[in-house]
């Protein structure tokens, strides 16, 4: 018999155009708590999905207790003893705790078509008790907090006799007390001989809980070490240790006057005392982990979401912005991270999408000024190098990069002064990325203020004049290209819980 409960050897998973996981190896011992860490997009989710049978890898092999397996679907993985508690819980809130625990394996009374609720309640209560939760299992799941709902998911895993429970960022939506309880539960599962793969963004949790830690980067295995051989710095440099490609056509422009100033912006549970300013003629980068409050900050500033308190100044004047319409009137443009869901009307033409934000200005009397719109669309298409057969093509038919250029065109047409780009290069190919950077350069050269939120550190470092790092709804610090060395490790440290000195 093998020493390992689960072993991956040379596993590769490809998606059209990208290799999500390359030659990955991983060994998990029985009954250990194994940490998994990596940047956004390092391949952690792919690894989880391969282990749970959601994705089928093209190359490599997986062994469970020394036996080679190849899961064709999630059911097979579950039968083999691998369970996963996803970040988004699979709980039916209106059903009772018992119903949720037995959702796919209900027990019938002997020789009867009816459910044996007496027995099911009993078992459910027992399992929850063993996880440290003495609760009424007949109550609706939704009436309990996130911590208990998560325990219900863990109970499901325990009941199928899982040998490995994967927990994907289990503490991200929990309060302090719930985190403590979860840690206790995880340790008690370990005592029962169940192995845990603990995926987390929080270094201190890994150090407190895990026996060993594996670091992933760019879809590859970087290292696996005992926790006591590691410290913060060595983990971070292992995560970011790639070299910067020279694919950023950064230009130096002369920073102008202040364009936007935000003071003491607060939003319960999301933003805490966020203050910063952005200037004309510069690119201000916003770095941080997913969920650090960067998008939320600018949704509030732009008027897309309400906020509790705080002040916003544009060109030194205090403004009150309560809707995106008001935000646009104040000269702001907001390129959202979700371009299909929030940026474009996919069923409409390129032409219509290009004037989406200023339709009323494209009219002559009652009707559209078709000539003006045609001219504008042609200008946009050649200026921004949008590859489309005609301006009347439905936007949904274009490639990601070209769709993104249509969104940028939409905002340029409003003649905005402040451009907020949220993950502007997500999901587009390298060539289109450079074109997006060039557009940003053109805006800066024209004296506009550009704010770029990005989870890709090389991009932040390559393009920003100043960088602000956010973590858990707060601003952790600011770096300037002129006075500081912009380097990944300093930014990552701030994003993962350290301080910028």
């Amino acid at each position, binding site marked *: 018999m093998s020493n390992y409960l689960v072993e991956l050897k040379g596993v590769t998973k490809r998606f059209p155009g990208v290799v999500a996981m390359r030659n990955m190896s991983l060994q998990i011992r029985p009954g250990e708590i194994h940490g998994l860490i990596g940047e956004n997009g390092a391949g952690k989710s792919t690894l989880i999905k391969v282990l749970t049978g959601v994705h089928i890898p093209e190359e490599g092999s997986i062994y469970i207790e020394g036996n080679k397996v190849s899961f064709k679907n999630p059911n097979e993985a579950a039968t083999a003893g691998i369970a996963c508690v996803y970040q988004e819980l699979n709980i039916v809130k209106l059903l009772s705790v018992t119903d949720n625990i037995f959702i796919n394996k209900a027990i019938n009374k002997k020789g009867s078509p009816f459910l044996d609720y007496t027995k099911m309640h009993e078992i459910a209560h027992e399992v929850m008790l063993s996880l440290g939760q003495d609760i009424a299992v007949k109550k609706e799941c939704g009436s309990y907090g996130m911590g208990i709902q998560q325990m219900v998911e863990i109970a499901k895993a325990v009941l199928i006799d899982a040998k490995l429970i994967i927990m994907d960022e289990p503490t991200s939506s929990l309060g302090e007390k719930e985190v403590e309880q979860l840690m206790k539960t995880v340790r008690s599962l370990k005592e029962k001989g169940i192995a845990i793969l603990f995926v987390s963004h929080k270094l201190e949790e890994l150090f407190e809980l895990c026996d060993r830690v594996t670091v992933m980067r760019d879809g590859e295995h970087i290292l696996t070490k005992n926790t006591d051989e590691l410290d913060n710095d060595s983990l971070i440099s292992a995560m970011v240790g790639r070299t910067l490609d020279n694919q950023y056509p950064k230009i130096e422009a002369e920073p102008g006057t202040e364009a936007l100033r935000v003071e003491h912006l607060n939003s319960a549970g999301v933003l805490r005392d966020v203050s910063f300013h952005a200037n004309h003629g510069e690119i201000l980068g916003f770095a941080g982990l997913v969920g650090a409050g960067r998008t939320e900050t600018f949704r509030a500033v732009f008027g897309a979401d309400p906020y509790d308190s705080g002040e916003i100044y544009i060109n030194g004047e205090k403004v009150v912005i309560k809707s995106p319409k008001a935000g646009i009137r104040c000269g702001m443009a*907001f390129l959202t991270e979700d371009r299909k*869901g929030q940026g*474009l009307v996919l*069923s*409409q033409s390129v032409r219509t999408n290009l004037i*989406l934000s200023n339709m009323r200005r494209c*009219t002559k009397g*009652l009707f559209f000024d078709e000539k003006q719109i045609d001219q504008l669309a042609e200008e946009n298409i050649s200026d921004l190098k949008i590859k489309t057969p005609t301006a009347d093509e439905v936007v949904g*038919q274009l490639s990601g990069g070209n769709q993104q250029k249509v969104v940028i065109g939409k905002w340029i047409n*409003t003649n905005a002064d402040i451009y907020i780009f949220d993950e502007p290069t997500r999901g587009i190919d390298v060539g289109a990325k450079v074109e997006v950077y060039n557009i940003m350069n053109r805006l800066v050269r024209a004296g506009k203020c550009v704010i770029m939120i990005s989870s890709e550190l090389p991009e932040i470092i390559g393009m920003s004049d100043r960088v602000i790092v956010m973590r858990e709804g707060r601003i952790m610090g600011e770096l300037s290209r002129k006075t500081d060395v912009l380097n990944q490790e300093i930014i990552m440290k701030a994003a993962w819980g350290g301080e910028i000195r």
Partner: protein
Amino acid sequence: MKTKKMKDILGKVAPLLALVLLFIVLSLATEKFFTLNNMMNILRQTAVNGLISAAMLVVLITAGIDLSVGANAILCACMMGMLKTSFGITNSLVLILVCIITGVFIGFLNGILLTKMHLPHPFVSTLGMKNVLCGLALFVVSTKTISDFPAAVTFLGSSNLFKVSGGFSGIPLCFIVLILIYIVYHFFLNKTALGRMIYCVGGNPEAARLSGINSDNILIFVYSLSGFMCSIAALVIVGRSAVANPSAAISPYDTDAIAACIIGGASFMGGKGTIWGTLIGALMISTIRNGLTLLNTSSSVQYIVIGLVIIAAVFIDVTRTRMEAKAKRLAAK
């Protein structure tokens, strides 16, 4: 490229071809069908559904639905009846004005329910509204059918142009008005900023909002417009039947209108649909009714056929959407 254009054109004229085919079949089936006066009859019978379909179309484009259209129209008619019998008002201008105000106000309420009171889907709110309006229609005229409206009120629904006594029955004025309204709709939906915004709100409300379009106001306008069209339909109903009958509020005006829009290319998913397609859809439904009546089929058969046409229309809608999605996937590869 060329085949794609061919497909586009075919997709657009397919409902028209179906209508022509229907005409040919019915002409062969009975010689009473393809006569000038019967054609005028069909136009006359199309007017009410055509007006209500125009109301429904714009709502469908926003991915909504308005089930209260028929009840709204009947309530508008009964409001005129109430003014006449209970208050003795016979001034046509007052009656018509009250009719229109009632329709627009009910539509406005539907819009408020959807946007400001955050009811989950207009199916729910307008279904509730339909029942309320059915009750109100009976209430305001004490369940009585009201007749003897002034000539100016019934004018729109009852007059015919170029009428020859004993011969040509004349072109119904209500259909001419319908066409005029459709032309206005055409320009409104295609050539104005507000019209385009309606399509955009239907296609992606969040993207529209983040692009500075006030989606709530657009939706309130759309439902108010729907109410306005219902009030015009009310005038035609009163004109054609010469009475305001409160129990007509439960007639299937809403489903007929939905069927007309869907046959004409609108989609429950929103963002799609044209006014001319809707005209063909409305013509198709009245043609089927008219033809089946001429063939002396019983009303039971008429219900069955209309029902099947509605199902077929929705089936065509979903199949078309699925085919388009498939084509997109293939194109992406």
